[in-house]
């Protein structure tokens, strides 16, 4: 089986190399954290616990590994779809779902190990400034009180652990994501679009129902003054009264993300059809083509937008909680509190999500060469192709922006209500619902245009139809 995994990996190397960015970024982040943990252990063994910055690096490490395990489902789907004929043949020749899943998981482990090693090596020159910045951002300046600086140490153990963790997490995630796809539809082996089994449908609707219920309960509970909050309000402890709602707000964040991810494929096409009514689809060839292109591949649409919406909502949620709920000090302290929370809890997952967006855009772009050829044959000049790609990027990004802002609105309202109800001061204005979505919208537009424009440029250079 190991030989088969290696041979299949070698054969599909070009496809796997397109996924490298995701694992390099993850390896960079995980490696930085692990190296810092080992450095603290080796050079500062006696530092008192309140000043020990190990936790500063532990949270990004854990959240980073969890994030890559989740977002790698998009990569697995694209790899299987890109080689669906081959994997169908494997099934016909007698490979069972476990063996096929092992084949995918094994290959993902290999590319995860390779990418994380490269990421670790790239991180080495930047480890000291990054580690110092993280420690200071978390308010542990006192760690440097003795005048010492964070030393440079290349930890071989950290490097091995980085590669090891990534290989294991990628391998297991790849196996599980692939198993979901291979285990059903055994009676329709030649059909690539497998219908959901009864169990899968039940699981799906249970997830939707539970997350909706959780959302309703959490929002409902946040509208009333809970007994715990009342106890704090009676003794004029307004800050603690506000903080009593943090579990509700975290539940809202979690349920919103789960629900959106579950229904994304259903609602995003409708959202696109709705808001693009204002675009000149009838008069512009490029806009019209871009519109249909964004609708035709619903799984890609969902895997592109869902993680970003999740990241945006996490950022917004943590910003609101850190600024309006847990903040009790000067504006500077509030800003520091917010910054530390964002970096510690959301920073690493968000960077991995952005790397994932870039990765799946690169992979999908590479597989759409046939579409470019078709458009060129039908008369699209290079400038039409690039313009069409710009329109696509605009449609994807704006759909993300609208989704992200819509999700932020009720959260803003509930936090504002809570802050006022617990006699605290509202720090963030209503425009805060736009901050993170707009930043991410901008990055998304730039990423997608850059990747697609490069693909068009490469295609144009090689294609003899495009004679100047």
């Amino acid at each position, binding site marked *: *089986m190991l*030989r*088969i995994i290696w*041979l*299949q990996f*070698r*054969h*599909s190397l070009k496809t796997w190399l397109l996924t490298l960015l995701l694992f390099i970024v993850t390896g960079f982040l995980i490696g930085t954290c692990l190296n810092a943990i080992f450095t603290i252990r080796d050079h500062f063994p006696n530092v008192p616990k309140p000043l020990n910055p190990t936790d500063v690096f532990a949270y990004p490490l854990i959240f980073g590994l969890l994030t890559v395990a989740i977002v790698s489902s998009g990569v697995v789907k694209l790899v299987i779809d890109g080689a669906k*004929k*081959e994997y169908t*043949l*494997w*099934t*016909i*020749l*007698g*490979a*069972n*779902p*476990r*063996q096929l899943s092992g084949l995918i998981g094994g290959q993902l482990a290999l590319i995860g190990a390779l990418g994380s090693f490269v990421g670790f090596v790239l991180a080495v020159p930047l480890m000291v400034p990054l580690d110092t910045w993280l420690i200071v951002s978390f308010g542990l300046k006192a760690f440097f009180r003795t005048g010492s600086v964070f030393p440079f140490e290349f930890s071989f153990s950290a490097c091995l652990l980085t590669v090891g963790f990534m290989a294991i997490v990628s391998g297991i995630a790849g196996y599980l994501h692939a198993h979901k796809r291979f*285990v059903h539809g*055994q*009676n*329709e*082996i*030649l*059909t690539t679009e497998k219908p959901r089994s009864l169990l899968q449908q039940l699981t799906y609707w249970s997830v939707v129902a539970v997350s909706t219920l959780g959302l309703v309960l959490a929002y409902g509970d946040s509208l009333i003054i809970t007994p715990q909050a009342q106890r704090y309000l009676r003794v004029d402890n307004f800050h603690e009264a506000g903080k009593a709602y943090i579990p509700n707000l975290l539940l809202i964040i979690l349920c919103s993300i789960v629900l959106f991810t579950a229904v994304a494929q259903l609602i995003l096409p409708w959202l696109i059809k709705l808001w693009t009514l204002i675009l000149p689809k009838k008069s512009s060839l490029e806009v019209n083509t871009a519109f249909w292109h964004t609708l035709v591949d619903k799984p890609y649409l969902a895997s592109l937008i869902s993680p970003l919406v999740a990241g945006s909502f996490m950022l917004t949620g943590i910003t609101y909680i850190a600024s309006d709920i847990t903040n009790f000090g000067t504006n500077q302290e509030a800003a520091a509190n917010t910054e530390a929370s964002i970096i510690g809890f959301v920073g690493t997952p968000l960077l991995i999500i952005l790397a994932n967006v870039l990765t799946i855009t690169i992979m999908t772009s590479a597989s759409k060469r046939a579409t470019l050829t078709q458009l060129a044959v039908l008369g699209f000049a290079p400038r039409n192709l690039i313009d069409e790609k710009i329109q696509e990027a605009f449609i994807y990004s704006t759909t993300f922006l609208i989704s992200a802002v819509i999700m932020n609105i009720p959260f803003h309202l509930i936090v504002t209500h809570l802050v006022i109800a617990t006699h605290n001061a509202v720090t963030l204005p209503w425009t805060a619902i736009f901050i993170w979505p707009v930043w991410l919208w901008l990055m998304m537009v730039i990423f997608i245009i850059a990747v697609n424009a490069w693909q068009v440029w490469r295609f144009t250079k090689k294609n003899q139809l495009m004679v100047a």
Partner: protein
Amino acid sequence: MKKQVIDVNQITKQVAANGKHAPVEILHGISLQANAGEFLSIVGPSGAGKSTLLNAMSGLSKPTSGEVHLLGQDPYRLRASQAAEFRRKQIGFIFQNYNLIPALPAFDNIVLPLRLAHKNVDRQKVAALLKQINFAADPSNFVSNLSGGEQQKVAIARVLVANSRIIFADEPTGALDSISRQIIFGLLRHLTKQGICIVMVTHDIEMAAATDKAITLRDGRLEKVINQPTAEALFQALNEEGR
């Protein structure tokens, strides 16, 4: 009396049409049987449903109604792992092209069923088998470096190594030159002498005429079953249906 290995009973196959249209029925109530060592060909014009019938018979595409039994088993009632084992051990597949796993060299393609079943691979036995079927290329070559004829020989070697009892072949000689076609057909014919039942979809009337039984298909319906068919009989049967 030879043992019945394939029993297909009144199978239909519908496919969902897009939008509000009703499903389209591609196969209409087809029944047929085949015995061990029998060479059965399925002929008909393009779009008759030959490949659909082959896929339904071989456990790759569940019929909408009706039953399929291969070696006494209904392949559509098996669990995924059982179905995979059944395909590994009992059923062989030879397609017109895209037969072999491109990632694996010829030797690994041949022994793939054994590796998937975690069985030991006897290299000498495989080498002897390749000699028997006149495989001239280097078994360590990748598929892309083999000619069409050599690729089909690798596919035949694979079913021999797996001791398949039934082989489903969809236009196995369709992409080959006339000499390779004769060689491959000869090998398939030889396999039936070992008790293997072969079901072959083909456009080639002359090749169908060299099989034991031919069934003609038109618009998803079984029109005729001809035992010991001749080219003239097949040509006439196909022309009669065309009127």
